[in-house]
């Protein structure tokens, strides 16, 4: 890394250097951070109860005096904000959308897991806990995951009370179905729109609090910086997306519930505006970033159709309950699917993983699809997909049952591809979908900056190296409804009657200036390429070298290509329009800027993790059957990265994972 690049890296922070205030260096990694997960004592089943029994409380009358900022209004953000407001805190919610109801949790299709055992099929908290740890390839923290499994049952109760119209049996009781990585039927669902219905449930609860005046909503407002003063989070700086005004907000505690970074790949199932900015700005201010290389490539998305494509659309994992995955047995078989006889089809998941079959976990199914396509057996006009076939299920159950279960997904598929999946098999291919990595948090969901919390997909905590289907909704709501409202109180209680720094503090002023300068710079570069162009090129590099299949050589290549492209971004970016009205090109520039730095960290993390686990597959580390080869002796730890001014020079710290309840085993779905 040349010193020249390093100085060039932070042009936006220049005003900070001009200020006489000596304490204000642009980057201040917190000194002496110890990665203590703060897991409570006692047997695993009692840890959360022990925590709640010991935590400090805030008197209801004192709660109004504490201001809590919640950034993001998805499942985690909306549920946390609504609950904190019900408890009595002074809550401010920020979303870049026009309404809190738009967050991308809304697009989740399949369902939400809970250890209710309504089917009597042998489910329990212990089993959900074990499935999640195993699904995550033994790279998540036991304490957190056990708590997640425990509160999963409360989530269903809460959402039913909220009016979520879950699918029902004829007797009126709740229906469930299966999802990948489990042999039980523990997934609750609302047609193929479970995420929508859960988000609307949480949104309604939040709307009630907004109407009551307990929550102040800041819509079309984007976080552009996190402010730390004396080692704790003092608040945030936002940019109004309508007026361009930059403004500070001070609070006692700040929650980031801003989702994942799947859009670093450019083409992903994430919504167009999903971004890493909030988490990245926190990272730059001292929050460690954990396991960025753990990204989930979802096996069943509609394949890319052409070069102008802006995003990929997921076809729910639930479809694999009734759909069978196959490719022609023979390379280059161009016949239409109906003309290929059974004997010449390869139902490869059923063949390779007989006990889980088509419901093998996502990482395994994705790699199998990639290998099928790479072997020349891909299907569709671009030979870039595999079949997901419902013919057998329609024959067995009838078209009506399939319509009832998946009707809206079939319609969605037809709109996008012009093909009718009742008549011809769907074509699917893996795409970036979810990110297990994220801000490092302890048991209380506190980042390495005291007072700054991360909830939902933005944290790294519960999903390990691979997330099971129907577990993201569960985690978002668990964090927001049943974890944060307790742990934040424990942090706030000792702060009673102690003043906090206001927005007139010089640190806020500096952060505001830095943000204004940064956005002004994007406009002033006047180069030749749009933010979207850079994003697409960035995505190609990441997908090529840090996607489903990673090698040391490829990652080194990415780590040499990315800084070069980033340099180009900083000198050849073109943003038209102005900074004082809606300017989506300018918004995009800020987001792509942060994706660049994150992309470098992802590749470094993938290079350093010399093993294969879950979604992180290093070709050098596989067994004779091509399955992921973990290295528990050297890598049974969380890699938490500290920002030092340049992502290429970030420092890697370790939190060793201790398995006291679960025996580390080879993850087999055969």
């Amino acid at each position: 890394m040349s010193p020249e690049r390093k100085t060039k890296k932070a042009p936006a922070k220049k005003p900070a250097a001009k200020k006489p205030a000596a304490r204000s260096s642009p980057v201040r990694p917190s000194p002496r951070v110890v990665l203590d997960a703060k897991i409570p004592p006692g047997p695993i089943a009692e840890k959360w109860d022990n925590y709640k029994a010991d935590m400090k409380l805030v008197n209801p009358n004192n709660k109004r005096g504490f201001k809590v900022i919640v950034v993001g209004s998805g499942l985690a953000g909306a549920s946390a904000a609504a609950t904190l407001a019900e408890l009595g805190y002074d809550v401010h919610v920020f979303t870049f959308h026009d309404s809190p109801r738009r967050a991308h949790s809304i697009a989740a299709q399949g369902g939400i897991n809970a250890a209710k055992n309504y089917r009597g099929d042998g489910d329990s908290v212990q089993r959900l806990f074990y499935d999640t740890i195993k699904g995550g390839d033994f790279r998540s923290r036991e304490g957190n995951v056990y708590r997640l499994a425990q509160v999963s049952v409360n989530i269903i109760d809460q959402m039913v009370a909220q009016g979520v119209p879950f699918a029902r049996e004829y007797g009126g009781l709740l229906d469930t179905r299966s999802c990948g990585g489990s042999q039980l039927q523990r997934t609750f669902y609302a047609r193929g729109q479970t995420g929508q219905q859960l988000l609307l449930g949480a949104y309604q609860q939040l709307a009630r609090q907004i109407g009551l005046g307990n929550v102040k909503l800041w819509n079309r407002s984007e976080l552009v910086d996190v402010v730390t003063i004396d080692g704790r989070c003092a608040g945030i700086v936002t940019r109004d997306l309508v007026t361009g005004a930059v403004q500070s907000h001070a609070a006692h505690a700040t929650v980031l519930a801003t989702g994942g970074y799947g859009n670093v790949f450019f083409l992903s199932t994430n919504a167009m505006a999903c971004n890493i900015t909030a988490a990245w700005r926190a990272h730059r201010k001292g929050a460690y970033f954990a396991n960025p290389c753990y990204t989930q490539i979802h096996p069943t998305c509609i394949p890319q159709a052409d070069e102008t494509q802006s995003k990929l659309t997921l076809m729910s994992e639930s479809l694999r309950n009734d759909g069978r995955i196959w490719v022609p047995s023979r390379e280059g078989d161009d016949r239409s699917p109906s003309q290929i006889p059974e004997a010449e089809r390869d139902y490869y998941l059923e063949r390779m993983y007989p006990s889980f079959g088509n419901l093998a976990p996502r990482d395994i199914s994705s790699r199998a699809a990639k290998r099928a396509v790479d072997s020349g057996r891909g299907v569709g006009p671009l030979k870039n997909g595999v079949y997901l076939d419902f013919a057998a299920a329609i024959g067995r159950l009838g078209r009506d049952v399939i319509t009832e279960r998946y009707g809206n997904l079939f319609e969605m598929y037809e709109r996008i591809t012009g093909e009718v999946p009742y008549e011809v098999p769907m074509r699917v291919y893996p795409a970036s979908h979810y990110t297990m990595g994220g801000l490092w948090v302890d048991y209380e969901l506190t980042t390495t900056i005291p007072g700054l919390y991360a909830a939902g997909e933005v944290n790294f905590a519960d999903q390990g190296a691979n997330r099971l289907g129907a577990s993201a909704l569960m985690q978002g709501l668990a964090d927001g409804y049943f974890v944060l409202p307790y742990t934040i109180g424990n942090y706030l209680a000792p702060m009673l009657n102690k003043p906090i720094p206001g927005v007139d503090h010089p640190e806020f002023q500096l952060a505001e200036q830095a943000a204004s300068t940064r956005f002004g710079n994007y406009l002033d570069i006047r180069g030749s390429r749009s933010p979207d162009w850079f994003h697409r090129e960035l995505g190609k590099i990441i997908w090529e070298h840090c996607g489903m299949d990673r090698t040391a050589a490829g990652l080194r290549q990415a780590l040499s290509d990315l800084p070069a492209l980033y340099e180009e971004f900083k000198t050849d970016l073109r943003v038209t329009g102005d900074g004082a009205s809606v300017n989506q090109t300018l918004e995009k520039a800020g987001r792509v800027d942060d994706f660049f730095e994150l992309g470098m960290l992802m590749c470094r993390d993938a290079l350093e993790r010399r093993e294969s686990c879950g979604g992180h597959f290093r070709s050098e580390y596989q067994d004779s059957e091509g399955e992921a080869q973990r290295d528990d002796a050297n890598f049974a730890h969380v890699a938490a990265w500290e920002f030092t001014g340049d992502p290429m020079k970030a420092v890697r710290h370790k939190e060793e994972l201790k398995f006291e309840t679960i025996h580390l085993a080879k993850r087999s779905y055969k």
Partner: protein
Amino acid sequence: MKNLENLVLRIWRQSGPDDPGRFQSYRIDSISDEASFLEMLDVLNEKLIGEGLEAIAFDHDCREGICGTCSLMIDGQPHGPQRGTATCQLHMRKFSSGETITVEPWRATAFPIIKDLIVDRAPFDRIVEAGGFITATTGGAPEANLTPVPKPVAEAAMDAAACIGCGACVAACPNGAASLFTAAKVSHLNLLPQGQAERWSRVEAMVETMEQYFGSCTNHGECEAACPKSISIDFIALMNKDYLSAKLKNRALISRT
């Protein structure tokens, strides 16, 4: 896959709420019929940026037809010509070469234009804040299977709850009414056993908040035709029935005091 050639787009440009605004024409020489309508706008925006011009501002996000962020009046139809489809799921195969396509923002008094094709739909949030919820604070919920919900009831509630809050119903309505949006939310909750405790106060509060912002419903039915989720206007009847009942109940209560 084939390409469409020589499309002309007449797009509404308006720099801010106070600008009177105007149509501006743009030419698309060639675009794949596999592209979505919004991807076509992306291509146009890239071209505009290349020419040093400001990109067209339009609301969009999930591009899966579920978040309700996208809007657009396309040739006078909310979300364009395809029934039951949001703009983001509309694909260019529904158009043909040489066509002129007119693109406008939602037009309704309650939805002021912010810029170009972006409008402010905040009154929808105000309606939900007034009563579009079930009061059930976190932690106090009973066991989920304690109250069975008959399957047809759950299905009907789900039909209503499928609303994505995009505002097409308002844009389609000659009166600029929001009855379909409000009715969908009222019905979703009023149908369920969990929603009964607040049934009457909910419908009153939501209808009366709606009337502060939006025009009145005169049963044109345009909303149902425009709805990307094909939500039925039967729900408007259900809402009106509940509203009437709520008012009669109030009279009964008043006469008792």
